[in-house]
């Protein structure tokens, strides 16, 4: 395992070790490029994971203070927990459910296809599906996505079988156990899924792809990658010419360290990445790094989510088995006749008793609430995940008063639903309930969005520097050796889980960075 010097200015320094940062780090290391990944969290390995919702949350979740505002219910119910993401080596790939879907073609050009939607800051990606297909191919192969590369799909669990039966009664056509980065058979040195049912708490069998035990150890084995846990980057520094020169970070003892760098790539997820750029403001860049457009932190997207839970006369035991291996794809098309643009997926979901109590209807009490929990074993559940509209006012800013333990302003997250989001969610609630009603649900429950697991768009990719923060390679328009490598570079969010696209973009970006370094352009 490499151990690089703080003054080594030949390094690529990556902030964050999740889907973007972990993948980029390994890809560069495989090309012989020396990389340091600075990860704010601890290094918890598979053997440390626990099948216990609150205990696992305490172990993995990003719990540092954040503030919220806006009309989204999360701001009311969980004012300091806008996002349910991870602070640990592997980032949110420890927590993610494994759903690995490609964007639809139209989702790369929403401004052209959807037109001018009042209040939305839609923009076409400077990329097309055709541009991305080779990189999706590589991402699917790397991650071992079921339903691709000849990999069989996972077997359906009880929760899926309820959804499948309802979907077929309704006439939905594209219904299966998904494209999952979870081994359905042993592959890449990892075993197959044991149907444990705690996908969100870190996969105890390692069947689910996570950078923690795939990309990161592979990169470390090259001798070109060093991962430093408990290293919270607080500032990116630059020279008089504006080129970035390294980062300041707080180490595990709370001491400030300066790591020099040839290239810096930011992959701290869509709340921390813009926060870091904004907190790196200097006399040369008073509005924050890479922010000449004023777009850093704007267009925050979180997907139009909702859940539908249904109670049946007989048992389901939805918690048994792979949490999200089940999907209905028919509503993912763009069909404005439904009353909204964009589409959504319906995917199985399940929470255990502790989290269902907390999230089924936050703040609710009394028998209407508790009777649903009493029927827990007879319950099925699905998650609705659709494309939300980017809006310039949905935004991550620096909180004006609240500071973290290092004295730096925390991220403040403002989010208002767009009318299109509301219409889509309502449609999803209605269709989700119809699926379950078709197989005899005695009660259906509409569950409000959870704290965001999909955080996107706050450093968006744009053709023109005035419209966004990074170019088609994730390279900031303003500073050529500064990159963004996570979901914050998404121009728009598409109606599907984002990780596959984050990984595909990271593989592609690694090629670009290596090429630019080879040409001495950066």
């Amino acid at each position, binding site marked *: 395992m490499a151990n690089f010097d703080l003054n080594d200015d030949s390094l690529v320094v990556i902030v964050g070790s999740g889907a973007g940062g972990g993948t980029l780090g390994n890809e560069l290391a495989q090309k012989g490029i020396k990389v340091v990944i600075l990860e704010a969290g601890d290094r918890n390995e598979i053997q440390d994971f*626990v*099948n*216990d919702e*609150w*205990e696992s949350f305490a172990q993995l979740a990003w719990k540092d203070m954040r503030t919220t505002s806006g009309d989204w219910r999360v701001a009311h119910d969980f004012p300091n927990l806008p996002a349910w993401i991870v602070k640990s080596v592997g980032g949110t790939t420890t927590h993610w459910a494994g759903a690995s879907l490609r964007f639809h073609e139209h989702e790369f050009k929403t401004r052209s296809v959807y037109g001018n939607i009042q209040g939305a800051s839609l923009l076409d990606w400077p990329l097309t599906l055709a541009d991305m297909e080779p990189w999706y191919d590589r991402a699917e192969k790397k991650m071992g996505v079921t339903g691709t590369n000849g990999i069989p799909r996972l*077997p*359906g*669990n*009880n929760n899926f*079988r*309820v959804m*499948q*039966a309802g979907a*077929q*009664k309704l006439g939905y056509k594209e219904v299966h156990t998904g494209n999952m980065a979870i081994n359905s058979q042993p592959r890449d040195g990892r075993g197959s*899924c*044991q*149907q*444990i*049912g*705690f996908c969100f708490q870190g996969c*105890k*069998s390692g069947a689910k792809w996570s950078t923690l035990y795939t990309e990161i150890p592979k990169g470390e084995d090259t001798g070109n990658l060093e991962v430093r846990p408990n290293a919270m980057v607080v500032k990116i520094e630059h020279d008089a010419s504006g080129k970035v020169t390294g980062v300041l970070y707080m180490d595990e003892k709370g001491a400030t360290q300066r790591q020099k760098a040839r290239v810096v790539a930011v992959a701290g997820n869509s709340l921390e990445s813009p926060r870091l750029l904004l907190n790196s403001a200097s006399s040369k860049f008073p509005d924050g790094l890479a922010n000449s457009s004023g777009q850093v932190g704007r267009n925050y997207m979180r997907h139009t989510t909702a859940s539908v839970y249904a109670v049946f006369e*007989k*048992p*389901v*035991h939805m*918690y*048994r*088995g*792979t949490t999200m291996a089940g999907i209905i794809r028919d509503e993912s098309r763009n069909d404005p006749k439904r009353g909204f643009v964009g589409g959504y997926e319906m995917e199985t979901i399940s929470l*255990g*008793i*502790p989290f269902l*109590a*907390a999230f089924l209807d936050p*703040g609710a*009490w*009394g*028998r209407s*609430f*508790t009777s649903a*929990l*009493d029927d*827990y*074993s*007879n319950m099925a559940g699905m998650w609705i995940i659709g494309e939300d509209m980017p809006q310039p006012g949905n935004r991550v800013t620096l909180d004006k008063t609240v500071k973290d333990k290092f004295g730096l302003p925390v991220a403040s997250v403002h989010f208002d639903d767009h009318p299109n989001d509301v219409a889509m969610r309502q449609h999803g609630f209605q269709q989700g309930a119809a699926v379950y009603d078709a*197989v005899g649900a005695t009660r259906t429950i509409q569950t409000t969005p959870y704290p965001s697991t999909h955080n996107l768009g706050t450093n968006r990719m744009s053709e023109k520097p005035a419209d966004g923060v990074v170019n088609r390679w994730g390279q900031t328009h303003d500073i050529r050796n500064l990159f963004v490598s996570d979901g914050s570079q998404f121009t728009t969010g598409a109606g599907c889980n984002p990780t596959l696209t984050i990984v595909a973009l990271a593989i592609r970006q690694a090629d670009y960075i290596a090429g630019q370094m080879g040409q001495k352009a950066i």
Partner: protein
Amino acid sequence: MREIERRTTVGRRVFMRGAATAVPAAALASAGMGITAEAAWAQAAKALQPGSMATLVRMSRDTYPHDHIPDVYYVRAVSTFDDKASSDADLKKLLEDGVARLDGDAKTHFKTSYLEVPAEADRISLLTAIAQTPFFSKIRSGLVVSLYNQPDIWKRFGYEGSSYEYGGYLNRGFNDIDWLPAV
């Protein structure tokens, strides 16, 4: 389908995590004999008045009523507040004042203390009236964790908890549903 044995024997040693409670096992053994200030678990409260402890247990049951869950779990959930109140004077005051307010409301409307109001619907009306107060909010938001995060309560809801040590559900019924219409 593989069903779950929901019966639990609550002995003197009931374990709970996420809420290290200090109620002595012997005191807990009296749970189930009624929610009263005279119960041993109420008398064993560290910070709260026994009557307040009993009122909070009654209030907890009314807030999250599960008729198949015995009192002992509510006592344990409430004892997390008592534990914290023993080193947090502000919390202790919030709870004692809250109970006093609830009892005052009960006397006004029903001529007796909250604990003695016989009809659940009447007690719910009293809780509804204080639902927006910091006191109620504190109790509710704490309970939703301290009540439901007791592992030995889970199977009473049909939830089996940690599974990896049993090999997951691969051979234990992940796909054993047998009542769906044929597709």
